[in-house]
């Protein structure tokens, strides 16, 4: 885990280092200390984003367990800390000290790499979200022209981790889980891309910052209601929570692609799932509901409230709904969501042509 964290911060440091014109500074004779300052600054920002994401995940898991217990007429965690709020920390310690089991037939390298491929996109996606301003400080780690593309590219990577993890376990349940994960991935990804494309057309820019600024008067959910429905369903499918939890359907396959994982590796997959739930709710709140832009005033508070609403909706969908069949899901993806998203693309192009100045 520490190693993973270290590699992540260095990667991000390199990323940030490259998009800033420091190479020109080098040519003009700026000292090397400035580079090191910049690198340290980048690493500190990654640490902050990582810490905030983990805090959100801890709160989310606690709320999920209490809420689920409440709906199912149970009490839920109630031993450690006030109202059982420290239960997750105890669980993490339990997972860390468990024996690290890798199946004998498993492909060891791929088996080890897969949880990180699932978890990394959460942090990478959190880096480009504009969380609003606190006085003059802008809470956005990376800002360049193509942040929306970066976000989508980061979100597209995580199903690869599921496929690799299921494939490398050499277990038939894991193989079925990986196969279903790939099928589901193919099913929802194209409509999701097309609805994101209509957002880009409407805002006239690839940058999430510009998309947020374009929603000053009207949030995009009003002209783009069809696209919002498609994107929301795709986000539910992407987290593989019910009703679209085909890759890890607990009653048919043991645990889908993560059957053979145990100990902290399973912990990383689990944290990746919940972290992706947090990321998905923040992304929906940012792209379709204006993020930090709200009525009366613009603040971090708005994005927190909006994304909390979506987190509750995701949790409710997880707890309360049943599961669709594979063929039903693929039918929905290709026969309904794809035409709806193309219709939405047409509508938003017409809006952009005729009312281009409104947004």
């Amino acid at each position, binding site marked *: 885990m520490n190693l993973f964290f270290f590699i992540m911060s260095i990667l991000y440091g390199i990323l940030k280092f490259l998009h800033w014109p420091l190479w020109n500074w080098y040519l003009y004779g700026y000292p090397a200390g400035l580079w090191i300052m910049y690198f340290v600054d980048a690493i500190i920002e990654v640490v902050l984003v990582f810490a905030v994401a983990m805090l959100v995940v801890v709160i989310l898991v606690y709320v999920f367990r209490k809420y689920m217990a409440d709906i199912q007429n149970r009490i839920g965690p109630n031993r450690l800390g006030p109202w059982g709020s420290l239960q997750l920390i105890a669980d993490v310690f339990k997972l860390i000290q468990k024996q690290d089991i890798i199946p004998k037939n498993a*492909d060891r390298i*791929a088996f080890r*790499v897969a949880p990180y491929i699932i978890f990394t996109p959460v942090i990478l996606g959190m880096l480009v979200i504009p969380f609003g301003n606190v006085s003059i400080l802008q809470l956005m780690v990376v800002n360049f022209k193509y942040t929306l*593309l970066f976000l989508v590219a980061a979100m597209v990577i995580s199903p690869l981790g599921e*496929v690799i993890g299921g*494939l490398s376990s050499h277990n038939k349940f894991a193989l079925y889980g990986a196969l279903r994960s790939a*099928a589901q991935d193919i099913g929802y990804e194209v409509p999701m891309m097309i609805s994101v494309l209509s957002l880009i057309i409407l805002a006239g820019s690839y940058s999430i910052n510009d998309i947020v600024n374009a929603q000053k008067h009207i949030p995009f959910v009003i002209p783009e209601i069809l696209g919002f429905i498609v994107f929301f369903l795709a986000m539910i499918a992407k987290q593989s929570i019910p009703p679209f939890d085909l890759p890890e359907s607990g009653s048919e396959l043991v645990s889908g692609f993560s059957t053979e994982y145990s100990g902290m590796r399973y912990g990383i997959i689990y944290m990746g799932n919940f972290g992706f739930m947090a990321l998905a709710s923040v992304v929906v709140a940012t792209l379709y509901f204006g993020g930090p832009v709200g009525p009366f005033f613009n603040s971090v508070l708005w994005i927190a409230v909006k994304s909390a609403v979506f987190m509750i909706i995701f949790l409710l969908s997880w707890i309360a709904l049943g599961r669709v069949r594979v063929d039903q899901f693929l039918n929905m993806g290709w026969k309904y969501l794809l035409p709806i998203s193309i219709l939405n693309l047409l509508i938003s192009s017409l809006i952009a042509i005729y009312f281009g100045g409104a947004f």
Partner: protein
Amino acid sequence: MIVFLVISAAIVGTALLSAISKNLLHSSLWLIFMVVSVAAMFFYLGNIFLSMVEVLVYAGAIMTLILTSVMLSRRYLDEE
């Protein structure tokens, strides 16, 4: 210049590894790393759009198809 050399060495190395490794899963893993390092090369050369699209199309869509076909191939299943 150093960054350019490092990234191009990574591209060539991962491409070679993906071509010569016997295991189909390993070679597709190396292919993912190759795609990501090609994206890093585009990023370094200043074309951020192309690098994002590279990750999106190749690492996202094409690699899922390749992994699916690896999953269903007789050769990989026989190695168990």
